[in-house]
């Protein structure tokens, strides 16, 4: 469905809900078309194509809020849904802080965010399949040891609309393209204890515009390199050493910081950053920004999920915590103003530093280049951090040998304060982006 159609549905749903006795109404309507193909060993392993709709209605009466969602956009179904929501609101408690945003905060940015690519909507299925095939073929050809776990092309056309009972009604369209490949390789010595052991890795590229996808050659070679460099990984000794988070693990770390500055976690006091505004929470090398207005970026949007006009927010400036990321409700709970972050982050990133990655590696005599983190051990509530890791050991300023089956632990506060070098490149494939950085010392638990 196109944005005009779904805007109409959103606006008429608001009117029906008001007629049914709701005092405030918010409606969001989504419509998407998704395509995905996975090639494995030159055959199509999966081919999926589907269109999907969803409507979400939030109403309130006497500050008692409830919501209902459905995949059925027919008017009869929407009417039933509104009845369900009204009934549900009757058992909710009054929430003094509930309300729509102030009217003057509502609006859609006038800037062109480059969210929709006409070419993407036109690419044929055959072309998408052949790109996935090429991606796999190049990877398999580059090294005979490589086992393919599949190469994919996926794309989406996405339209959304949002309307509320203050008269806001807007909609926009987005396109999305991505390619990825996963590889594995045997990693054992005959008769050794590693029977059956393999190493695996993957790489991907994403973009709004089809033409901005990375070439299949570079995606394939990065995936193969990241797989092969794990061969023969050993368990490191238990020790305390400097650690470089590469752009992948740095992104994971920054994702935890995004949760820690989320207004919901602040007012619920489930963040180690609650009460820390204005304080030095990090090394001065760290500046963190949320910016929904970067053209073509994956997290860009003209307004947030309650219709508040998008704007840039500096979260951490030279190590000082400047702002949380807030919806209007979270802002009211904290006696602050919304930052246009209902629905969460937009493009959340750490600013680039001035060190090249080579300089950062060569600054370490004995330490770790961390390439993978796993597990749910990043606890933003207590501020404790302990995760499983994989990476490459650094000796005398050089990447020396792969390591795995260790954990890396500390606290978020120590880690943020311990950032002593920040790399000069930023990888924008996802809505969270971080340059690689070096932390002075962390506990590695291994042998």
């Amino acid at each position, binding site marked *: 469905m196109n944005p005009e159609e779904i805007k109409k549905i959103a606006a008429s749903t608001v009117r029906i809900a008001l007629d049914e006795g709701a005092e405030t109404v918010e409606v969001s309507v989504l419509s998407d078309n998704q395509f995905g193909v996975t090639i*494995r060993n030159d*055959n*199509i*392993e*999966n*081919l*999926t*194509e*589907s269109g*999907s709709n969803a409507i979400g209605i939030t109403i309130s009466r006497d500050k008692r809020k*409830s*919501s*209902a*969602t*459905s*995949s*059925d956009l027919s008017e009869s*179904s929407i009417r039933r*849904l509104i009845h369900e929501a009204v*009934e*549900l*609101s*009757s*058992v*909710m408690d*009054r929430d003094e802080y509930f309300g729509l945003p102030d009217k003057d905060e509502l609006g859609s940015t006038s800037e062109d965010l480059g969210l929709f690519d006409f070419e993407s909507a036109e690419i044929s299925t055959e072309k998408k399949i052949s790109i996935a095939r090429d991606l796999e073929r190049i990877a398999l050809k580059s090294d005979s040891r490589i*086992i393919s*776990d599949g190469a994919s092309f996926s794309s989406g056309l996405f339209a959304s609309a949002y309307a509320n009972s203050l008269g806001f009604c807007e909609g926009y369209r987005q396109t999305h393209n991505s390619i990825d490949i996963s590889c*594995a390789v045997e*990693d054992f010595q005959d008769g050794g204890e590693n029977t*059956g*052991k*393999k*190493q*695996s890795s993957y790489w991907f590229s994403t973009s709004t515009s089809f033409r901005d996808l990375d070439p299949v050659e570079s995606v394939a070679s990065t995936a193969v390199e990241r797989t092969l460099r794990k061969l023969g*990984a050993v368990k490191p000794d238990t020790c305390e050493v400097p650690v470089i988070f590469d752009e992948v693990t740095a992104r994971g770390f920054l994702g935890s910081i995004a949760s820690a500055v989320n207004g919901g976690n602040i007012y*619920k*006091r*489930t963040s180690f950053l609650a009460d820390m505004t204005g304080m030095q929470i990090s090394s001065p090398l760290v500046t963190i920004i949320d910016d929904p207005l970067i053209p073509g970026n994956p997290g860009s949007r003209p307004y947030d999920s309650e219709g508040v006009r998008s704007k840039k927010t500096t979260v951490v400036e030279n190590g000082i915590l400047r702002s949380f990321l807030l919806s209007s409700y979270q802002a009211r709970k904290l006696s602050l103003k919304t930052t246009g972050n209902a629905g969460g982050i937009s493009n959340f990133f750490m600013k680039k530093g001035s060190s090249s990655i080579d300089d950062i590696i060569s600054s370490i005599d004995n330490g770790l280049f961390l390439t993978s983190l796993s*597990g*749910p*051990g990043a*606890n933003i*509530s*207590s*501020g404790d*951090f*302990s*995760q*499983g890791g994989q990476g490459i050991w650094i000796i005398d300023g050089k990447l020396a040998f792969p390591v795995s*089956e*260790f*954990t890396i*632990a*500390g*606290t978020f506060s120590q880690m943020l304060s311990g950032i002593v070098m920040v790399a000069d490149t930023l990888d924008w494939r996802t809505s969270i982006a971080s340059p690689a950085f070096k932390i002075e010392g962390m*506990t590695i*638990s*291994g*042998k």
Partner: protein
Amino acid sequence: MSGPLYQFNISDEEIEKILGAALSKGSDYSDIFLEHTIVNIITMEEGIVKEGVKSISLGAGIRAVKGEGTGYAYTEELSFDKMRQAALTAAAIADSGNAGGTAPLSNVPFKNHYPIIDFTTDAALRKKTGWIEKAEKAARSFDPRVVKVSVTIADRSSNIRIATSDGRSLSDIRPMTRLSVSVVAEKEGTRQTGVSSGGGRLGPEYFTGGRDPESHGKEAARQAVLLLEAIDAPAGPMEIILAPADSGILLHESVGHPLEADFIRKGTSAYTGRIGDQVASRLVTVIDDGTIDHDRGSINFDDEGTLPESTVLIEEGILKGFMHDRISSNFFDLPLTGNGRRESYKYPPIPRMTVTYLANGRSDPGEIFASTKKGIYCKSFMGGQVDISNGDFVFVPVEAYLVENGKITAPVKNMTLIGNGPDVLSKVTMVGNDFAFSDGRWTCGKGQLVPVGVGLPTVKISEITVGGSDL
């Protein structure tokens, strides 16, 4: 509303035509998965019933299979024309060969592993808010250091119908109830969280059958307050004792995932080609069983219409079998195991665990503690993750203690345990006689979310790397 089976208003003849359309380009097999699901979530926070959401989803997913290839499409409009169109989209997976015929549909009988009288989905809203308020009150009044309590009740009833091109037709309602309590306790700037949750494929009787809402409230508060006094965990290899029930998450990660047969079929699992090998200590028998009554991970039939069973994966340390979906079972020419599962009509089924457990042993738990000089006793868990290819897995305890000279001493916090599946299972040195299933709280993510169950008796592992921060 969810009581009787939902009527999808489509005749068997029409379904056979749709399945035929999915085969029209030469696929070997096709199926259709019709789903109508109602989910209710109510959350109490800061002392008020604050969030209430009702979600309804209705759709049909149509799959065409050719060898190892899957074509898939779904529609949310359940008209014959739309479903037929989706079937033709799915059919495109095959591009040659003669169109096969479909067998006439007939109902497949099955045993009901979760018979219930009432659905939580249908319970009066006031009844649900009443359970929530009881749990909240129990948590809040537990200790003055409790500063935040959040309680959520989530219930679900899924009406599904599966029909296959080989003539199988099955319909079911899958119930689910889950209560979870999360508590934050604070003391002099230290902040800790405790959680307790449970449920299963049952109705409101969950709350009267031993796990009343108060018990979850108290348990979450007890954990949060306990952790305020916890010391930093040590770093390095140590002996580990796993408490019964929830520790099964270690098994789920370390051997469960690598024994899902899609990884085996693709040759990317550490266990590929190892049937008959000794992959664990002789004390270890691992079973996946989707027939455990009312368990969160149980199913009356899987999402491609296969009846579940008790599948022995590892028997006394020897690798016996894998968990199959239809594609892997055909690929290996091995029997189906009832492990083809999916999150919803939006996804094709893939091999997934149901209820995965380690069978009971002979040791008295007291002896297990007495034999431990210095180790960690892990009681409850936040979750885990595994690297399928090499078997390295992590899991994160919430409640854990130091064990010194056979005695539980101080609670410890902030640690991830890391091990290698085959390596850790070969280091199982004692298995207790106190087996228990986890209260239903686990959801497994593998591109799609499905509810699962785990279980384990007390188990001792002679060495796992403990990733604390205290050197």
